[in-house]
């Protein structure tokens, strides 16, 4: 399975990619904002999962999800963000996110979440 990791923090992309490796996923792509994520998703039909940060420059994760869903792409998207309020979670889910992971998370938290989507 190919997974796209979207985060403006280089360090956070490394941490999430490391967690993916621990659940057996080594085929990963990176994007540093929502705009790049939308482009990569449209060009790579093999992507089976997207891990999406919310607050990023150029285009937020929420805007990126809306654009991806508007293009009729149903790739599973896990929002992976510090935005932990209930209203924010509902807003993301209504906009097309499939799941939600609030930072801070432990390595166990993210691995447990990933195992639900790894085939």
């Amino acid at each position, binding site marked *: 399975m190919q997974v796209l990791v979207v985060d*403006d*923090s*280089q*360090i*956070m992309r*490394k*941490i999430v990619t*490391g967690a993916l490796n621990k659940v057996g996923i080594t085929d990963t792509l990176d994007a540093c904002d929502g705009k790049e994520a939308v482009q990569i998703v449209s060009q790579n039909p093999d992507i089976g999962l997207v891990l999406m940060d919310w*607050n990023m*420059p150029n285009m937020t994760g929420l805007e990126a999800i809306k654009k991806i869903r508007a293009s009729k792409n149903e790739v599973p998207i896990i929002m992976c*963000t*510090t*935005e*932990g*309020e209930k209203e924010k979670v509902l807003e993301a889910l209504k906009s097309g996110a499939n799941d939600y992971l609030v*930072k*801070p*998370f*432990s390595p166990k*938290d993210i691995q447990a979440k990933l195992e639900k989507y790894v085939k």
Partner: protein
Amino acid sequence: MKAEHINPFINSVSEVFKSMLNCDVKVGKVEISEPKDCDEEQYIIGMIGMSGTARGVISMKFPEETAKKAVGKFVGLEFETVDSEVIDGIGELINIVAGNAKTKFQGHSISLSLPTVVKGSVYKLKNLGKLVWLSVPFSSEVGSFSIEVSFKPVEDPVKEVENASVSR
């Protein structure tokens, strides 16, 4: 700034360091922050602005050695110098600490700016709103660091936005 407003930030630091760095922190005495003119130590300082039903700023101030060790523990690497990854890591740490803290202010709707990270030895916090800054020192296995916070609930956010637009 009321003393009770500092607790969500203190708790957030403890939680973030525990869950993401597997590191316990010891909290020191909360004090009113006094700017210093000169300091020999080089610091890495992450800052985030808050707006909405409360406004203010939170900053985290790390001596270089602490910054390298904290980000190293965060990502599972060792850093010999303060490079772009260390700077990026401090930005992400302050982002997570501030994001986690704002969820603890029930009844508030607070937005965060994107983080800013600066490096240097002279460090003065000042803003135009005459807000008091509170400073909290922490110690941990990765070294000592501190947070400085100004936080003020906005009594009438709508009026505040109207006034802001008139002044432009």
